[in-house]
């Protein structure tokens, strides 16, 4: 897993000015995989920004999450080109296969499913990303195979 990220070290890299807020939160999100409450309180104090404002920024942007995310982040593009080429069906299939009612994190914290509005690969619609890998020309038939690549062995067998 790697060593526990150190918040104090992270904050030391940034000048204690309000415009450091978003880059700092981006780094915390990167290292901790979400924005824990104590970290946000620490950031508010360090940058001298009211906590209510830090909270607004943390809840305003799509990249930030106040809840821990799953081991694998699945992002389905619902941009116009992808929509027109059937992305909603791919999304529906992913929701069904992951047993989720709406995009979110699975109960076992293995997957977090999110929708994104355009990753800029419109020529390859429909597109989805799992972690850093992009998968073009998706169809709902390809979904089980795609998820299988990332499921742990025991779960893969159970899902079959």
């Amino acid at each position, binding site marked *: 897993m790697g060593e526990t990220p150190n918040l104090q070290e992270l904050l030391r890299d940034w000048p204690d000015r309000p415009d450091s807020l978003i880059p700092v939160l981006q780094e915390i999100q990167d290292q901790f995989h979400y924005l824990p409450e104590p970290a946000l309180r620490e950031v508010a104090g360090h940058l001298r920004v009211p906590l209510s404002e830090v909270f607004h920024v943390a809840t305003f942007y799509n990249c930030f999450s106040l809840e821990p995310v799953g081991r694998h982040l699945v992002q389905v593009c619902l941009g*116009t*080109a992808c929509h027109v080429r*059937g992305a909603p069906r791919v999304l529906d299939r992913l929701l069904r296969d992951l047993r989720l009612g709406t995009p979110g994190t699975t109960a076992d914290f293995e997957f977090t499913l999110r929708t994104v509005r355009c990753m800029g690969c419109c*020529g390859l619609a429909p597109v989805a990303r799992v972690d850093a890998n*992009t998968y073009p020309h998706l169809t709902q038939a390809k979904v089980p195979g795609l998820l299988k690549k990332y499921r742990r062995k025991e779960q893969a067998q159970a899902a079959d």
Partner: protein
Amino acid sequence: MPRLQSLEDLEARRAACVGARDPAKPCLALCAGSGCTASGAPEVLEALRESLKRAGLEETVELKSTGCHGFCEKGPVMLTWPEGTFYNQVAARDAKEIVASVSNGRRPVERLLYRDPTSGERVQREEDVPFYRFQQRVLFGNNGRIDPKNIDDYLGVGGYAALGKALTGSTPEQVVDWVKRAGLRGRGGAGFPTGKKWEVMRAQPATPKYLICNADEGDPGAFMDRSLLEGNPHSVIEGMIIGAFALGAREGYIYVRAEYPLAVEHFRVALAQAEECGLLGESILGSGLDFRIRLVQGAGAFVCGEETALIASIEGHVGEPLPRPPFPAQKGLWGKPTVINNVKTWASVPVIVNRGPEWYAAIGTTGSKGTMVFSLVGKINNTGLVEVPMGITLREMIYKIGGGIPNGRALKAVQIGGPSGGCIPASLIDLPIDYEALTEAGSMMGSGGMVVMDETNCMVDVARYFMEFLEEESCGKCFPCRKGTQRMREILTRISQGQGAEDDLKLLEDLGWMVRETSLCGLGQTAPNPVLTTLRYFRDEYLAHVRERRCPAKVCKQLITYSIEPTLCDGCHACVHVCTTEAILGEKKAAHTIDAAKCIKCGACLEVCQPKAVLVT
């Protein structure tokens, strides 16, 4: 790389780059943009490298990764030089043959050449491929030639010559005048005359002054800025430095969306290289101009493409727009005069300085000069990025360049301008594409997204889709946008479910008018465009939904039924295997039936049925 202290140093370096290149030396240039990367370009690159090594050709043949060529549908793509041969859909296993062809009298690998769908002929050179032949790639032309991570490549194609010319051969006022006379209009969407914006900023007494490059390309379906940032970041940097000279700015920012990691990486590399040779920093080329650019990443909010929201985001706030006036050119970042322009606008500046404003103004129409970059996507054979002179017709775009609609279907509409734009019906296919003509038709140029739709797209569903997008991305500050988009989406959903009334159409028009007139920022002001244009041009589709509870395009789930035509079904059982709700019943070799109660209309069976026995009514 040693610091360039003067224009002479720059030209000496350029001459060295050009001199070091042997134009006859074979070169394999593979596209490494996001699209081709997703299609397997890294594996192809590795395979090519391996094959070159095994053939002992690593020294004699150059292998490089270039920026996005724009023809993502046919990716991975590559070019071979000096012939200019264009290969498409290259796979790792093709590497050996490609390398072999380099030494075997340079005969191209036939099966990898582009095949014209109508004539069936193979085309060898890139400029002969219909997709490229009718384009005028003023901004994107170098994407296929240079390695974006190597500043020498950029210098080799004439990069930074415009900067030299501006800094040492003219005055700031002259540069602003050139941009004005060229007629350059902002390529971010609104099309505001760039020269005018620059003039307003120059006239402000307050300092310091700032420049911002808006790279928060949020329109779903648009990826031009991404390709330019990934493929030719220096063209944008050069434009910004010239802008700094013209406008008296010392600091610049580029705000890139979080969803473009490759663009961020390539831009960072380019910035570092420009700084290393002194093209950014203090006293650039000995002229006394100090200028630095900082890269700031977005955090996932479409509204941050709006200039005042973007500025708020850089300052560390939420992306909530501010009222204009005052405009950013008067009071922007930290309350100081700020010029904020789109990626393509900045990249146009070196072109105007190099070729002159008259050359630029000769392209396009009276009101819209220069070229425009469109992302042609959707139901079209050749999807990708298309750079064409303003004034080209939709017909030429779709049929000459786009290769027409696949599966022999009929064109229904073209959505231009993203969620802020509108749907142009097929009847207006001879519309020349320029700012004024599009606005008159009820649409908008926007950032250049062009989504082609055919008879299998439901316009009510399209309007609902865009309203959903805007509702989600609305910042929520002003009442009409926050509540208006929500209510309009609710009405559109009801209509798509067959629960709408005819009065709802007037209500949509009233709400749409109100949201457009009263919203605080451009997001809200243009949010009703998709609904209003579809109501204007496709009213009968709406009427079918509300009067007859019928979806003519057979898309809206509650209004369609899936069934199997018994005379066509051969009982192959393929559909049963893919149906996740066990809604299909039938014995093998006998006609199958669909249980409507269990059917969720996911379309999986339709996708696999060979005899086309699955019917949607």
